């Protein structure tokens, strides 16, 4: 592994669970602060100051939750797949732990995206659920998440479970563009009217600035939740190590 000169030193430092625990401990309060400020500020902005949409009225404000959660759901899956690949290639325990920690957060983001999408659909299209291409793809993404979580919990041996989940996450990642393409294509066949949930190019800054704040806020939230779960996972997996024992004694 020493011949991999193109990889920075911190990459291999990350392989140490103890080092990861320490650095996440230092980063956590800052990300938490950022999360609270961005989400609180973003929500106030979205609800009170952003203009309502000309056609959709105030239900448009749901976009400030729907789009960030959808973006996060997809990003988290990418992160899971990358972590899985790193865990398989370099056999890093921490990468496995990141995969396991990211899955439930990503899944809950997918659920939120679906729920807000469906709720938004009712005043916009008249029904609580529409087999729209985006919502359907998000639903399938949720199934992919649930599969990874189910496989991880079904296998008892921790490292085997991690490796199997990594393979599944990678297979899923290859499939995501295929699934998206096929669902969009299926949708154009069965729903001639294209329902657009977001009006991205036409959005004035008063509308997309709060959206940007919410997206960044959601990313910070994801980082906080991930670090929290990762630290728990590290303590559990390394519970026999001496540094954990010292840590426990200090509590």
């Amino acid at each position, binding site marked *: 592994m020493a011949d991999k000169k193109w990889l920075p030193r911190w990459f291999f430092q990350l392989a140490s669970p103890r080092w990861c625990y320490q650095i996440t401990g230092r980063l956590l309060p800052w990300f938490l602060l950022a999360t609270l400020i961005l*989400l609180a500020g973003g*929500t106030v902005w979205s*609800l*009170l*100051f*952003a*203009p*309502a949409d000309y056609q959709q*009225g*105030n*239900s448009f*404000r*749901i976009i400030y*939750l*729907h789009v960030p*959660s959808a973006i996060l759901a997809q990003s988290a899956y990418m992160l899971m797949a990358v972590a899985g690949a790193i865990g398989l290639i370099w056999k890093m325990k921490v990468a496995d732990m990141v995969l396991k920690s990211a899955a439930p*957060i990503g899944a*809950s*983001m997918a*659920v*939120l995206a679906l*729920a*807000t999408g469906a*709720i*938004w659909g*009712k*005043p916009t299209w008249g029904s609580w659920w529409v087999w729209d291409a985006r919502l359907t793809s998000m639903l399938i993404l949720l199934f992919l998440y649930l599969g990874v979580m189910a496989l991880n919990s079904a296998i008892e041996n921790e490292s085997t479970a991690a490796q199997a989940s990594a393979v599944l996450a990678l297979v899923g990642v290859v499939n995501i563009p295929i699934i998206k393409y096929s669902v969009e294509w299926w949708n154009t066949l069965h729903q001639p009217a294209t329902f657009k949930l977001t009006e991205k190019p036409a959005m004035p800054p008063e509308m997309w600035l709060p959206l940007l704040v919410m997206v960044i806020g959601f990313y910070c*939230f994801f980082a*906080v*939740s991930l670090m*929290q*779960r990762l*630290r*728990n996972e590290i*303590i*559990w997996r390394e*519970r026999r190590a001496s540094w*954990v*024992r010292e840590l*426990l*004694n200090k*509590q």
Partner: protein
Amino acid sequence: MSFNSVSEFLAMGGHGLYVWLSYGLGAGVIVANLILPKLSRNRLLAEQKRRLRREETV
């Protein structure tokens, strides 16, 4: 401000149910994802401390 009064704000032009339901869910999901790991951590630390005590007394 996009609204002229608190009652207008809560009503959201007739879409109040949808907006508040969504934001409520959003708040719930975010808060749950922040609090549940904290609770797990407390439980985990307590369990491991108990285990340490058990193993040291052996």
